């Protein structure tokens, strides 16, 4: 154990709400991100319940058609831009400096600026609901020329564009911060081949954001020009091209899918290694497969456009299939890590296993949809809805819960209740699959997405009722989670510095960590320095 190099702290030393508004500490900003995303998650969940209530039976009219459009637009926008991706940023904000032995992010004030832009952007998106025409109602993709129309798509659509643009700019700035921190601020001995897999995943994610998100800003600017400055980029009736919008949007949109999943590949890798009591199997393979996925993801944007007839389907189908190879490598490595390990199954590990099962189902249906003949049949059907919810809900969302249960003790210094955590898992796992598995059948039976009601066709009402019951079960699971946080905060069972006997550097400091993170750092001689310090007989390079 040795002392760290000396950073100087600059603090106004204030407590209370003001200190949170002014904070530039990466740990507090990480917690702010995660708290905000959880609030948006609750809002998105309420919207999802409204949708499922409307669809529970045929010919229901709980909410009207336009309101339904606004509800699914806000639900999708919130989950994609305000929950799944930014929770990863929050977690990375908290963990990256700790995992690489740095005192803070490279640009602390820029970090705070990014967070506030994100939060204000999210609020602006939802503020559209208070306008005369209501919130944006053109879907989370805001396809033109629908989103160019002003009748029925008024200030709410403008606020959506502004809000998402702010969130996009925030993501770009955050990525610059992550990359600079990882490349420049690693502790002595923490070479690139020793940084934890989660940090590697965030490096790849940040690069993806730098490549893809400027396109989002550009396309939204063009949309504003069309709406307010007399532009005709996307309106075919005035010489514009709706297909151009789709190209530009999906240049951003498909890499965004990987921005929403790569951080969680990192989360499950860390958790599987700890609860298997083994080092990560195939560390190098995991890193390279991440970059293969990231690279390929930049070349598959038009598989979202097969049915337009305006793209070369075989090129995009071939690249889409190829992504399954590095993803398969990851599954192989995760199984290899668990193989002959001393497995234990506390709540974080259960959520991780839930991730593996759900993501596998979503991945398999993704390969199916990568085939143009199948995509032509399933496009815009509930089969597609089931697919992406299995990837981003069953995948990312389960990993989010796994991450919360795993790192909560480090962040707050006390444990979450494991029994309630297991209830949380089983209710969510059952609820999720009851909700989304029947949607595969609904899609095959011909039910299209984004319809607010449907006729009483054979089997449709039954399957939709089952899906709605599953959604209610998921709501109960979230309530159990909130109850767990409340009960655990009340009991406050101390976590200690390293409650899971973790491998990486964040477990070598106190829980919660002090300002500037470390009083002392262990020598870093492998990718799991804390394990090496706590188990010298098994440490990398030890004689035994």
């Amino acid at each position: 154990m040795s002392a760290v190099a000396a950073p100087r702290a600059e603090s106004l030393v204030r407590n209370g709400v003001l200190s949170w508004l002014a904070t530039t500490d990466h740990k507090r900003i990480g917690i702010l991100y995660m708290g905000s995303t959880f609030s948006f998650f609750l809002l998105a969940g309420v919207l999802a319940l409204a949708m499922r209530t409307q669809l529970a039976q045929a010919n229901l009219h709980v909410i009207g058609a336009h309101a339904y459009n606004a509800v699914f637009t806000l639900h999708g926008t919130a989950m994609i831009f305000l929950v799944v991706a930014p929770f990863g940023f929050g977690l990375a904000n908290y963990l990256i400096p700790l995992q690489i032995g740095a005192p803070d992010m490279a640009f602390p004030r820029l970090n705070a600026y990014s967070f506030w832009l994100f939060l204000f952007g999210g609020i602006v998106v939802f503020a559209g609901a208070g306008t005369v025409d209501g919130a944006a109602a053109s879907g989370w993709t805001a396809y033109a020329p629908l989103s160019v129309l002003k009748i029925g798509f008024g200030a709410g659509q403008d606020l959506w564009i502004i809000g998402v643009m702010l969130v996009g700019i925030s993501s770009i700035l955050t990525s610059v911060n992550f990359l600079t921190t990882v490349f420049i601020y690693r502790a002595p001995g923490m070479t690139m081949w020793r940084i934890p897999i989660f940090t590697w995943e965030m490096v790849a994610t940040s690069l993806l954001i730098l490549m893809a998100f400027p396109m989002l800003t550009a396309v939204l600017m063009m949309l504003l020009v069309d709406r307010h400055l007399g532009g005709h980029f996307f309106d075919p009736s005035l010489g514009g091209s709706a297909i151009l919008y789709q190209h530009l949007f999906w240049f951003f949109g498909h890499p965004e899918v990987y921005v929403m999943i790569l951080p969680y590949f990192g989360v499950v890798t860390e958790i599987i290694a700890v609860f298997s009591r083994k080092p990560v199997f195939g560390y190098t393979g995991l890193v390279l497969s991440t970059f293969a996925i990231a690279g390929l993801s930049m070349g598959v944007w038009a598989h979202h456009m097969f049915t337009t007839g305006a793209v070369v389907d075989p090129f995009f189908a071939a690249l889409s299939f190829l992504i399954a190879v590095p993803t398969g490598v990851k599954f192989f490595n995760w199984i290899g890590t668990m193989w002959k390990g001393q497995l234990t199954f506390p709540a974080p590990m259960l959520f991780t296993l839930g991730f593996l099962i759900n993501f596998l189902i979503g991945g398999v249906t993704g390969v199916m949809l990568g085939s143009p003949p199948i995509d032509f049949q399933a496009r815009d059907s509930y089969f597609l809805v089931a697919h992406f919810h299995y990837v981003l809900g069953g995948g990312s969302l389960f990993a989010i819960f796994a991450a919360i249960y795993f790192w909560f003790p480090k962040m707050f210094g006390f444990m979450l209740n494991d029994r309630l955590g297991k209830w949380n898992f089983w209710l969510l796992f059952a609820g999720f699959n009851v909700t989304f598995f029947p949607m595969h059948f609904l899609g095959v039976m011909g039910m299209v997405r984004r319809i607010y009601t449907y006729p009483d066709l054979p089997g449709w009402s039954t399957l939709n009722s089952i899906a709605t019951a599953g959604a209610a079960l998921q709501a109960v699971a979230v309530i159990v989670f909130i109850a767990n946080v409340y009960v655990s905060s009340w009991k406050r069972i101390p976590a200690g510095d390293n409650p899971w006997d973790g491998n990486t550097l964040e477990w070598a400091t106190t829980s919660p960590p002090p300002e500037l993170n470390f009083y002392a750092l262990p020598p870093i001689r492998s990718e799991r320095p804390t394990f090496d310090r706590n188990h010298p007989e098994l440490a990398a390079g030890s004689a035994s």
Partner: protein
Amino acid sequence: MKIGVRLLVSSMIFALVIASIYGATTHDVIGVLFLGFMAVALIVVTIFIVVAEREANLAGDRKDLSASDVAGEDLGTFSLESYWPILAAAGTVILIFGVVFAPGVSFGLLLAGAALVAWTLRFLVREST
């Protein structure tokens, strides 16, 4: 660090190759431009990292170094609190609102500008002392 550079260069080559294949098979200008810009962006990031590495001589790249070997080394000042980021963010939001809805441009520009100036001045004053 070398591995970081290698990965970025590999990604850049991948982007160039895929852009060529895409261009040859589809003749679609939009996609070729997109993939080409991606390669250019990767070149910029790679150059940044190479320059940063040369200037920084990073302790993190040295396998056998420990924290004790650099004990006392000044890592610079890390701000723990500042009100300027939240004010700059509020100013940015008002500014963009102003661009779309007309009123508020001046106020947003003023607020964001003032916050950014104060933010930068604080940095400059601190660095000179």
